[in-house]
């Protein structure tokens, strides 16, 4: 096994800092109780790009993703040190409004999790609780817009009042994306959004991600390296809680700087 050299800046870091950074992470450490899950992660996420996190199971990529909207706060006994800056503002600063942060940094989960409500009410939920619309017409417009952006509008436009639980797995996941998009987040986090879907539904989600990056900054965790190669501009490789390499996706999958990355990508371990 090859150890990443401690303290060394991951290769290719400079390349990604050239575009304006939407999210900037500095020396982030994360702990579940006494167990450290992330070690000194520093990373820049460029605006309106897709960044993919790859790495073997348990390497900390999902944990890292969840530090970006402080979703880990809900797990008792967790602790983070370091900085996560969103537009230069420290999201871990004391007194920061977490509710507001999560509205700006949306999230789509591994397993689709629509509410047991109608399709319309699912998408309208975030708009309603955040009071983002002032009248019914505006609400309807925003819901339609979100469903169109998530490429599911033609399939559901005639059944908005029916339960979201009646949709297929792939449709439910796109509905969840629509629900996240409705509040117009600045960053969209996706935690293995297609891992529970069949190849056709997966393809739709991937096309959608490529489409969405015109408007959104997207971070996607994936176990599927072809998927990372297809949808992302920049790829970050995590291993044992450490960030091994960040590089342009094309470079990462053809000629990575680190031997460890190459071994993982070529399937020698993981």
């Amino acid at each position, binding site marked *: 096994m090859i150890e990443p050299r401690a303290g060394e800046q991951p290769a290719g870091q400079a390349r990604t800092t050239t575009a304006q950074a939407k999210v900037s992470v500095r020396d982030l450490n994360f702990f579940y109780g006494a167990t450290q899950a992330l070690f000194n992660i520093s990373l820049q996420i460029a605006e309106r790009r897709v960044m993919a996190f790859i790495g073997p199971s348990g390497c900390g990529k999902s944990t890292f993703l969840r530090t970006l*909207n402080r*979703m880990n706060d*809900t797990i*008792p006994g967790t602790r983070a040190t370091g900085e996560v800056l969103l537009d230069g503002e420290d999201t871990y600063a004391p007194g920061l409004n977490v*509710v*507001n942060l*999560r*509205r700006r940094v*949306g*999230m789509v*989960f591994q*397993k689709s*999790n*629509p*509410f*047991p*409500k109608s399709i319309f009410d699912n998408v309208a*939920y*975030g708009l309603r*609780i*955040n009071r983002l619309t002032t009248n019914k017409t505006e609400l309807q417009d925003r819901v339609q817009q979100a469903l169109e952006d998530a490429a599911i509008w033609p399939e559901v436009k005639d059944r908005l009042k029916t339960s979201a639980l009646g949709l297929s797995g792939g449709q439910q996941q796109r509905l*969840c994306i629509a*629900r*996240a998009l409705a*509040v117009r987040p600045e960053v969209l986090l996706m935690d293995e959004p297609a891992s529970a879907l069949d190849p056709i539904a997966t393809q739709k989600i991937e096309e959608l991600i490529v489409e969405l990056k015109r408007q959104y900054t997207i971070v996607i965790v994936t176990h599927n390296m072809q998927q990372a190669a297809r949808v992302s501009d920049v790829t970050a490789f995590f291993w044992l809680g450490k960030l091994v390499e960040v590089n342009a996706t094309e470079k990462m999958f053809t000629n990575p700087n680190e031997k460890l990355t190459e071994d993982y990508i070529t399937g020698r371990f993981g």
Partner: protein
Amino acid sequence: MNNPPPTLPTPAAAYGAQARAWNWRRALSPTGNTGDAVFRAVLFGCALVVLLLVGAMIAAMAANSRLSLREFGFGFLTSSEWNPVTGRFGALPFIYGTVVSSLLALLISVPLSLGVAVFLVEQAPRRLSRPITFLVELLAAIPSVVYGLWGIFVLAPLLRQYVEPPLQKWFGWMPFFQGPITGIGLFTGGIILAIMITPIISAVVRDVLAAVPVTQREAALALGATRWETTRVVLANGGPGIAGAIILGLGRAIGETMAVTMVIGNRAQISASLFEPSYTIASVIANEFTEATEAIYLSALVELGLILFLVTFIINAAARLLVWSVTRATSGTARA
């Protein structure tokens, strides 16, 4: 839960001709072991005894209430007269007392129980939620008669002095709070019941809320929901189960006898005032069966018992089904 015993994939030839003939041992236990067969038969017998008991109870009550059923017919449910001297019996005051005291109990207990359950599942740190859960469940273990004693000597004087007078002063324009203040009556009965059913409702609601998948909470939080808004999503998920918990509490309140008998006043009357004494079905059976010397009197009491039995039976069945629909469905998909 109840896995069928594994059938061994033995080639038919190994069994020979004997396997094809009917074999009582094999019929009882596919493994063909005598000890297992006996064991199975004994367990099945135990389960059967419970069913037979329930059947026997229904049959006995139906038979013993025949006299009253024939004499009063449907009028038994609508008549307010309860007169052992003239032999005229009607159940309405008892039905009224039972329904009103139980509803009053729900009115008080449901918000309280929901608050306890939501706190335990959504807010309390583990070192706090364990002892609180334990204490709440301990409430359910206190004998009913102890609640009754406490009701007479502590709760009733307290209500008479500090609660009922201000209620009458401010809300006396409503018929519920008129009449003499004694501390003994429907109001006190309802409060005692509320305390007694809070453990069961909060325990069941807690289980229901805990069965709501974490992904639902995360979905709400990720959209910028506050703790309160997230809790509402969780409550909506547990809707049918919560309804079941409430109905379960109702079933318990309707059947509760001892504590209510001690504080409700035991007078067969229908009054709009909650401060007036009342009577419940369970109380009248407990109080009067020793005095029921006439056949028709006893028969009328048994008919009351039959009504109580059927109502609580149906209520409990409905409640269990509702609770199962939530805890089973969600815990099933959460693991999938």
